[in-house]
């Protein structure tokens, strides 16, 4: 619970043994890279799962070569069973939401750059930091273990709705050991995330270098800070929810299971619980989780875009205000996931209004980003393109939120592909675009080498067009009433929609293949990329005031003093068109 000694914490001599240096490292930079590596592994698994699902949806009778080796029961002769499809879907959702979207933009880049951006040597509690990574990693191993238990991974979706997730094996395959591992993994993940959130908040509040007032913090730091606050409260609810779920599953309690249920012809011995209770607890976490995934990317884009636009971000105060407003409102809207869930229909209106109100700060953020592009002298590097792409997909994904926030339309669109399109655009694609922008932007700092811009641009164009080909048609499917989470389409009106699914599948395979360019670029540049200068993009924030990569204590024993905000681009009358945060020169604003 307590750091036993802070003397150890602020030791300056870097560790020399391989294990202390690369595995159980206390260095936030190493931990950040570890998170990034974990997210990369997870996103690869998650993407392959989505490929398998997409192929099955478009061509359900095709045997997929080798799939029977992965699971002989789940895919006899390579043809997926309905439950295996649901297993893959559950694992895709869980892995992507928890181990990619929570880890990559927040934990990975936040760990690496938050301390540097505020001029600190490390996080406030390096040992906690190490613990949070290894806790998260354990959670990941437990989750992956679900692939290898007898009847496979759980089939209850990433939302694990009770009682499907709570009653055990009678509810179907994958709901015995697989679901146990799922619940345990998520509980462990919560602990890791809570530790991380504590650390982020304490670091941001307490370790800012001289002159780094809150208003001078870069937007990315602000976003990580707000995200940490959201995590601190959100995971604190998911943790007990998961523990109660585990109790229901293993200790015979009935928190989420009402009486008189008959599954597999067996009257269940549970009584007295409430199904909606799980939904309330889950979505109280689940909706803020959406902002945990997207806010860091918003912050990253707000941080990166001005660098390439060569002009300050429009409305810095409004930007930060909007982030805080989104974080605050995210706790009042969970019920919009439950409009048709059987909760009191009056409350639908109560949840609908704040949900629609969230669109106001989101719109402001988008408009400010667009306004920043206005009149800019844009440098179209790969990270800049990903930032612009982010704005585009964020608009596309945000717009559909207007539909889903209204209960009267949700009666038609709920649980259709419209929802799938919405959250993939606004939460997954937008967030991942932020991660891509961040990777291309910060890679030189992290590894001291530049990434290939040519490959990067190929990657961008294929991905940008690809995601529109995948997710835009899903809106049309949703309008036609195509239900999500179906492993095959047997209803008459759904059979008519299969050609659209084939188009989406081809687009998904192509877009997925385009990610290999990114992977190649990442690995190739790590060893062969041109050596990066300290400030290749002419940025102002503190990470550009140190070497690439930064030394063990980030600034080589120097104590940075900050004189400016992070936003001084396009400044006239100075040597360059920008002023570093560490530069003491006076800026004359005209």
């Amino acid at each position: 619970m307590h750091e036993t000694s802070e003397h150890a914490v602020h030791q300056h001599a870097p560790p020399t043994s391989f294990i202390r240096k690369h595995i159980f490292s206390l260095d936030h930079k190493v931990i950040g890279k570890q998170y990034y590596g974990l997210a990369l592994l997870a996103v690869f698994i998650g993407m392959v799962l989505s490929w398998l699902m997409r192929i099955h949806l478009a061509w359900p009778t095709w045997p997929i070569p080798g799939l029977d080796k992965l699971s002989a029961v789940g895919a006899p002769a390579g043809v997926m069973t309905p439950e295996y499809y649901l297993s893959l879907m559950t694992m895709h959702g869980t892995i992507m939401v928890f181990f990619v979207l929570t880890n990559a933009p927040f934990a990975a880049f936040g760990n690496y750059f938050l301390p540097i951006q505020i001029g600190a040597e490390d996080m406030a509690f390096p040992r906690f930091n190490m613990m949070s990574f290894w806790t998260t990693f354990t959670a990941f191993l437990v989750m992956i273990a679900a692939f290898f238990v007898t009847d496979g991974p759980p089939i209850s979706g990433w939302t694990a709705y009770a009682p499907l997730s709570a009653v055990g094996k009678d509810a179907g395959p994958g709901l015995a050991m697989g679901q146990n591992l799922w619940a345990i993994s998520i509980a462990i993940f919560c602990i890791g995330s809570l530790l991380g959130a504590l650390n982020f908040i304490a670091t941001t509040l307490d370790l800012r270098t001289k002159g780094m007032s809150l208003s001078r913090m870069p937007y990315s730091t602000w976003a990580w800070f707000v995200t940490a606050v959201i995590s601190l409260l959100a995971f604190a609810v998911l943790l007990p929810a998961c523990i109660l779920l585990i109790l229901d599953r293993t200790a015979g309690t009935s928190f989420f299971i009402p009486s008189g249920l008959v599954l597999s012809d067996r009257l269940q011995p549970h009584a007295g619980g409430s199904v909606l209770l799980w939904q309330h607890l889950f979505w109280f976490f689940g909706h803020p989780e959406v902002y945990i995934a997207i806010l860091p990317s918003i912050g990253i884009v707000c941080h990166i875009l001005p660098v390439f636009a060569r002009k300050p971000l429009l409305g810095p105060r409004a930007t930060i205000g909007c982030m805080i407003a989104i974080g605050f409102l995210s706790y009042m809207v969970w019920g919009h996931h439950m409009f048709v869930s059987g909760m009191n229909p009056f409350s639908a209106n109560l949840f609908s209004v704040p949900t629609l109100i969230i669109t106001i700060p989101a719109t402001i953020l988008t408009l400010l980003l667009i306004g920043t592009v206005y009149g800019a002298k844009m440098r179209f590097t790969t990270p800049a393109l990903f930032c612009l792409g982010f704005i585009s997909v964020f608009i596309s994904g945000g717009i559909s939120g207007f539909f889903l926030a209204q209960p009267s339309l949700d009666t038609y669109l709920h649980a259709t592909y419209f929802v799938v399109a919405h959250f993939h655009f606004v939460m997954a694609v937008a967030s991942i675009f932020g991660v891509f922008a961040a990777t291309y932007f910060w890679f030189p700092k992290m590894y001291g080498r530049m990434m290939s811009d040519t490959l990067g641009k190929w990657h961008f164009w294929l991905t940008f067009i690809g995601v529109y080909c995948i997710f835009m048609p899903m809106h049309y499917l949703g309008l036609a009433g195509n239900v999500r989470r179906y492993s095959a389409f047997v209803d008459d009106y759904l059979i008519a929609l299969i050609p659209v699914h084939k188009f989406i599948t081809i687009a998904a395979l192509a877009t997925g293949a385009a990610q290999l360019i990114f992977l190649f670029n990442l690995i190739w540049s790590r060893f062969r990329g041109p050596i990066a200068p300290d400030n290749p993009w002419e940025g102002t924030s503190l990470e550009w005031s140190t070497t690439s990569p930064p030394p063990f204590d980030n600034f080589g024993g120097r104590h940075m003093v900050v004189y400016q905000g992070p936003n001084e681009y396009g400044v006239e009358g100075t040597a360059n068109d920008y002023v570093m945060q560490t530069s003491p020169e006076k800026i004359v604003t005209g």
Partner: protein
Amino acid sequence: MRSRYFTALAVAVLLGSGMLVFAKPPAGSGSITGKVTYTGTPPKMKPIDMSKEPSCAKQHATPVLTENVATGPGNALQWVVVYISAGDQGSTAPSQAVRYDQKGCQYLPHVLPMQVDQGLQIYNDDQTSHNIHPLSKINAEWNKSQPPGSPAIDTKYDKPEFIPVKCNIHPWMHGYFIVLNTSHYAVSGEDGSFDIKGLPPGKYTVTAWQEQYPAQSQEVTISGSEAKTANFVFKVLPY
């Protein structure tokens, strides 16, 4: 309707008892035959609405009925398993596997007797995915789906048990695996008759099992190659 029962009966008798007994040199030549009937008003078998699975619905000209109390002319009671519960247990499991079909969203046969450790092959003959979930308590429970065109599920049971089988996809699909220690068994046909052959001389307890009503037993002693008769009467209720 009638022909379907005959087919099912033929499959049951052929696979379940007759063939296995004839496939080996009979250990004895005694036999027990008889008829299973009911008294009282049997419950009305309900038509099964298969409209949610059109590929199955169109295989049946008239709706299929539930089979939990299947009756025939002359108060005959079908799908009753008659077996030797005490006495000579006959031979061990033959190498020939029993076959269980899923056709037209029905289990064929409705009641499938087999011996401990005898092979069991489950086929999906439909154009839709089925799920086989034998609700065993003594044997290990499993629950597998079988997409159309996938290979047969090959399995066996190593302990005697009466196992209800259900399809988790089509809730009306219900059947029974009857795993027996003995090789002396038969299933009553549509006329209620059964025939257990190849019994060596000795004292036997013959038990008749029906899925909904309590099982009944009779003591039968066979000397030489006697053909004994044992009739069973189940008391049924309309509800």
